[in-house]
């Protein structure tokens, strides 16, 4: 397994699995999927065997979820074939996948909170009796059998709302068993579970395995991969870059496979001398999301925040911006404590936040460009209680020009702009408030390469002008290429702080996944 940086051939990938005698129950051949501007999956060959747990690992955005969505009929692949027991199948929709025996439990369980356990398990494939009437008695009996097989105690008449997350996962698994699923896909099933619940889940996985289900187990946690998986596949940038038997691999090797990429994009990193501390957090904690977050942000600095999805980065940013209130901790601007209990406070203090989901959180699609740009700056264009429309237009024109916004006119509705230009509107609207600290949450997520380069170049300009930038990103190359310092978060805590000098992808991933052994390796 030294083929870092290249895609493995189908032959090499399937080799370790040849050890298992039975033929694969599910096989994908050359599955590809592209979204506008992004190649999500490229020529994926994957084999799932009965009674084998295959771990699917990869960074955020490596294409794992896209594959799950293709296998469960949410997306149609652009190219490639899917074989079920050797016969080619077409998965038309989620319902079809389910009836073909391909079932999935998702990160956030997609079940109905106000229906009972029985209703959830049988939704879409209810047992009907005479005259097409639903046969609840039969369904309840079947649920009891399935739950007994799983050896779990669960009242079939409980509403999902009243169950713990772990129990909801059990319902999802029971639902898979109710159609005699052959393939069970588990997308980070332990992400929200407690230690004890995780143990129970492992037991159930082992049981499913004994029953001959083929299990695709998606996880970021190496300890569980090494504990329950038989084989592994590593995805990187939409390609399968490594596969094999878990007992023959080390965590360090897996990390190397996950991150080992050739840098195909030169980052326009501007060297700015680090100035005095502008903004600091001391001991920020939240009852459920994060704890003990302390850092200093300096003038002219880009501070990267890296971590896995769900590590609490965005939640910390929300606290910095006053969207959620931390329970304890102090924020300081220029050494003086500030109170940020609402976004308006943050904006007034010169801290702005460019959110990750720019359409949901950033722009008002039905408003014209200029009104979007001036939305947080209305204070500055108000004269005697009335908006000064001429000043408003000036302000908007200035920042639209600075960002090279491509729009027919400033009166054009933002909803009619392209994604990259909408991103520019969002950034423009925050720059127009003349901030001192700008927080960029996944600034280049989902935008094309050209716009990415423009955003990166622009970040360089910002710090050159003396702004301080916090950049939350899940993209390692971006973190490595743009940051002066990197804070890695794991499970709501700071897992490490790294200076740009000596920054390596391996050390970041090791800190993010909590693999100290790999860090040493």
């Amino acid at each position, binding site marked *: 397994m030294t083929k870092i940086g290249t895609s493995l051939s189908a032959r090499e990938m399937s080799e370790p699995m040849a050890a298992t005698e039975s033929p694969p129950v599910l096989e994908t051949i050359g599955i590809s999927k592209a979204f506008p501007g992004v190649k999500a999956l490229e020529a994926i060959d994957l084999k799932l065997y009965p009674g084998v747990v295959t771990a699917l690992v990869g960074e955020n955005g490596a294409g794992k979820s896209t594959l799950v969505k293709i296998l469960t009929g949410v997306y149609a692949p652009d190219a490639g074939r899917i074989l079920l027991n050797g016969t080619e199948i077409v998965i038309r929709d989620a319902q079809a996948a389910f009836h073909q025996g391909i079932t999935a439990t998702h990160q956030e369980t997609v079940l109905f909170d106000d229906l009972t356990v029985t209703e959830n398990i049988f939704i879409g494939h209810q047992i009907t009796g005479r005259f097409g009437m639903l046969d609840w008695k039969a369904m309840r009996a079947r649920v009891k059998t399935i739950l007994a097989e799983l050896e779990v105690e669960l009242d079939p008449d409980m509403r999902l709302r009243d169950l713990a997350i772990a129990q909801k996962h059990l319902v999802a698994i029971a639902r898979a068993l109710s159609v005699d699923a052959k393939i069970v896909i588990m997308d980070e099933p332990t992400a929200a579970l407690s230690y004890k619940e995780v143990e129970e889940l492992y037991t159930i996985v082992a049981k499913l395995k004994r029953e001959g289900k083929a299990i695709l187990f998606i996880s970021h946690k190496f300890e569980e991969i090494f504990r329950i998986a038989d084989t592994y596949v590593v995805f990187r940038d939409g390609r399968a870059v490594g596969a094999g038997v878990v007992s023959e691999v080390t965590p360090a090797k897996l990390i190397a496979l996950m991150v080992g990429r050739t840098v195909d994009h030169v980052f326009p990193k501007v060297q700015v001398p680090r100035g005095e501390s502008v903004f600091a957090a001391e001991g920020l904690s939240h009852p459920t999301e994060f704890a003990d977050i302390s850092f200093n942000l300096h003038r002219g600095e880009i501070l990267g925040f890296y971590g896995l999805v769900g590590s609490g980065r965005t939640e910390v940013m929300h606290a910095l911006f006053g969207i959620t209130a931390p329970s304890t901790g102090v924020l300081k601007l220029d050494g003086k404590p500030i109170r940020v209990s609402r976004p*308006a406070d943050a904006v007034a203090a010169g801290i702005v936040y460019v959110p990750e989901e720019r359409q949901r959180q950033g722009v008002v699609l039905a408003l014209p460009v200029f009104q979007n740009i001036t939305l947080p700056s209305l204070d500055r264009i108000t004269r005697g209680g009335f908006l000064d429309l001429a000043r408003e237009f000036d302000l908007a024109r200035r920042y639209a020009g600075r960002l090279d916004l491509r729009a027919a006119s400033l009166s054009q509705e933002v909803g009619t702009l392209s994604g990259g230009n909408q991103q520019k509107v969002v950034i423009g*609207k925050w720059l127009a408030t003349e901030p001192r600290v700008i927080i960029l949450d996944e600034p280049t997520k989902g935008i094309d390469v050209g716009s990415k380069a423009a955003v990166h170049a622009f970040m360089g300009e910002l710090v050159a002008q003396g702004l301080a930038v916090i950049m939350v990103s899940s993209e390692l190359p971006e973190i490595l290429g743009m940051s002066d310092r990197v804070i890695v978060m794991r499970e709501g805590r700071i897992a490490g702080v790294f200076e740009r000098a000596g920054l390596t992808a391996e050390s970041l991933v090791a800190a993010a996944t909590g693999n100290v052994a790999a860090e040493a390796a």
Partner: protein
Amino acid sequence: MRWNRDLLFAAIVIVIVAGVGLIRPSFVWPRNLIGLFNDTSILMMLALAQTAVILTKCIDLSVAANIALTGVLVSIVNAAHPELPIPLLMLLAAGIGLLLGAFNGAMVWLVGIPSIVVTLGTLSIYRGLAFRASGGTSIVGHQMSPAFIAVPRAELLGLPMMSWFAMLLIAVFAFMLRGTRTGRAFYAAGGNPTAAVYSGINVGRTQFIAFCTAGAVAGFCGYLWASRFSIANVDMASGFELDVIASCVIGGVSISGGIGTVAGAVLGAIFFGVVRNALPVIYVSPFWQLAISGVAILGAVIINAGRERQTGRLILKEAAAS
């Protein structure tokens, strides 16, 4: 783009008026058109008020009940104290209406109940209070002071006072929605509440302000209604809230918030007035009026849906790429 839609709608209204005029020339006599505008004034003012509320992604079903309660209350005050000046009564009506609107707004903002539920409740509460206040009887013209009744009939420069009030309110709303932070906040809060919060706009307070505005306008209309029809009782303006909402929808105000113009709301109300006045003139049973209004509502919604779906597609493309 919004303007184009409003212009198109204005053209449609003009064509309808002209068409009726061809059949019945008396319909387009200035006197009749002024009368038509005057008849529609209250609907127009309420449509404007409702537009403010709908823009913020809320709805106010209680405006007609608000009219009944304020109408009854100011009529009682007038009957008991005929010496009180009318402008004071107008202020009183607007003030009572504002309080009723503020109650709606507070329930939405501070208690977090969906506006449709809140106002469905207050619709009954306000009418119930109107019944209590009036004791179930009507306050009729001869109990009201002559000045109280005279206002809507008075003319200024050849135009009835009610029309002047409507035009004043159109100007105020046009200015508020375009030229003030509050107006801008209405659009932002309804168009994308999340983005509004991120931009430092207090969405709940914005909705509260919209309800207060709507309440004050409805209260003022309560006085106008009582004086114009010289009667105030619990059944005043019964069911009128639906005409108001229909005017907004026909005028292109999006029920999902964030989209709508003053011109659209006013034209929606005028369309209502034209249909109501024109049908009897061309010997169409007034009962068709309901059906025609219904078709107009659906037509307007279909046209708007086509437009909104376009932006919807854009969202999906982005979502898929991320």
